[in-house]
């Protein structure tokens, strides 16, 4: 039984220019202890998916279709009060900008104990502080820095504090939205190791959102590639990396710089993200696609199963 099932999720934003269909028909399932990476460029809707799962969409956003089943309950049908019981206690989030996710006028230890107390009112303040201590040990922040303010911390330490906060209520699902984007490579690899460790140790399910395909490969079991609001390829990491099917996945993999091989001048033809207010009827990638045929722009692509666990949204993949 899957812990989380997302079915045909569609989310849009009311903007001055019209209704922007940010996410359209995204479906996936996640078992307890599994990790899923969602990869795509800026504006493809990956953060919107994360925010919808947390019930944290801004006021101008609305879910137009779909279901989010978490432990067999539809999160979208819950009242605000009910969702508050689930959020942070069962589903926690590691935010993108660690720099801005902490409150600058409160001590770090207080902010984390606040999260524990808010969701477990029966715990005493001292007991909560004890828990914070063990969390700090777990994520590797020296205990004598506990009572510091966020601005005393380096970028990597702030991100560790955010991870401690996400782990505070023993959630069964963590959504990590670009947790290492603002960090340099050395700190990034430390944070990724920490996330992997906790995920394995506590059997937490993880949704890892990133534009960096190599980081996702490092952390996740499954990967979903998003383009212009749609999932375009989904499968086990090994399947997708060994045999990428969708042309967008192929271009993402080809444009990634590795240390293993020297890339000779790569000519990417990166267009702008397609118009999502009036999305095209056919395949949304066809303007940038190298193997597109005339019919691609006319009819919407359908999922093609490559293996029981690997599928792509492209006619040319057959």
């Amino acid at each position: 039984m899957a812990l989380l099932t997302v079915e045909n999720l569609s989310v849009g934003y009311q903007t001055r220019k019209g209704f922007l269909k940010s996410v359209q028909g995204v479906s996936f399932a996640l078992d307890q202890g599994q990790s899923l990476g969602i990869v795509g460029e800026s504006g493809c809707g990956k953060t919107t998916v994360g925010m919808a799962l947390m019930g944290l969409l801004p006021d101008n956003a609305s879910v137009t279709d779909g279901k989010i089943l978490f432990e067999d309950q539809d999160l979208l049908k819950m009242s605000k009060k009910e969702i508050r019981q689930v959020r942070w206690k069962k589903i926690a989030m590691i935010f993108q900008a660690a720099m801005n996710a902490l409150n600058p006028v409160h001590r770090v230890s207080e902010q984390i104990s606040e999260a524990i107390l808010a969701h477990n009112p029966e715990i005493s303040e001292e007991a909560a502080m004890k828990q914070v201590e063990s969390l700090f040990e777990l994520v590797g922040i020296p205990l004598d820095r506990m009572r510091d303010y966020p601005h005393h911390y380096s970028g990597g330490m702030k991100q560790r504090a955010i991870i401690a906060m996400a782990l505070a209520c023993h959630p069964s699902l963590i959504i990590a939205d670009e947790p290492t984007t603002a960090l340099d490579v050395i700190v990034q690899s430390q944070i990724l190791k920490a996330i992997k460790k906790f995920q394995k140790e506590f059997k937490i399910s993880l949704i890892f959102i990133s534009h960096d395909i190599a980081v996702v490969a490092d952390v996740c079991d499954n990967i979903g590639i998003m383009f212009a609001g749609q999932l375009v390829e989904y499968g086990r990491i090994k399947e997708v990396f060994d045999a990428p099917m969708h042309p967008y996945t192929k271009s993402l993999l080809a444009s990634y710089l590795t240390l293993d091989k020297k890339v000779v001048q790569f000519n990417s033809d990166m267009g702008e993200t397609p118009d999502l207010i009036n999305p095209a009827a056919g395949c949304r990638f066809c303007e940038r696609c190298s193997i597109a045929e005339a019919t691609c722009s006319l009819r919407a692509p359908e999922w093609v199963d490559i293996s029981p666990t690997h599928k792509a949204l492209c006619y040319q993949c057959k």
Partner: protein
Amino acid sequence: MKDPSKVIIQLEHISKTFRTRASLFKGDPKEVMALKGVSFNIYRGEIFGLVGESGSGKTTTGRIIVKLEDPDHGKLLLDGNDMTKIKGKTLKYFRRKVQMIFQDPYQSLNPYLSIYDIISEPLIIHNIGNTETIKEKVRDMMKSVGLAPPDDFFYRYPHQMSGGQRQRIAIARAMVLKPEFVVADEPTSMLDASIAIHIFNILSDIQKKLNVTFLFITHSLAAARYLCDRIAVIYKGELVEIGPAEDIIQNPSHPYTRALIDAHPRFRY
């Protein structure tokens, strides 16, 4: 063309210390030594990579080279002439020859200026050409960075542009004076991986077309390898390794360089 016989920028034993001010509650001011006697040469026509982690002093080095910061000790030479203490007219001339592309295109562009004003501003400051030739130069530059057709972008403002487009505007602004030397400080760290490579290609095309010399500052060895002829690795304010890009990646001799290589995400699954 690369010409190893011609040194364009020379750093000699550059040191820089930053002092934090004493606060009301926490007593003594602290000193942070950002650079401890850094020396290297950059040759005309090459792309020179400076690689290191946050706080290693790589940005400080870049800011000293473009004279946004003065070193405490040491010398900065351009074409063999000492530039450490210049001011006035010589400094203005120096600024025409040496330009910088900043890290964050969301903060480096003036939100009140149109794209045309942003790119033409350096030409107006340095009093180069009349209205018509300025317009032509701006158009040319915008085409080279892939903002085409240029006239469509003239009267737009930074907030209407994507991150990749903003960084292209920043590149156009830096290049419009046809400088001889440009410092690019992590120009893609705020951008997506797929857009980053596009920006690298623009930089490398411009480098060939205008024959400028680049100092490319980054924390990613992979990016440095893609773009640079030579790489220097900086750690805690000191250079630990310098050499041809391929050599450094294939045979790193310093343990810190090896740590950087190991930390780089790979497709392990």
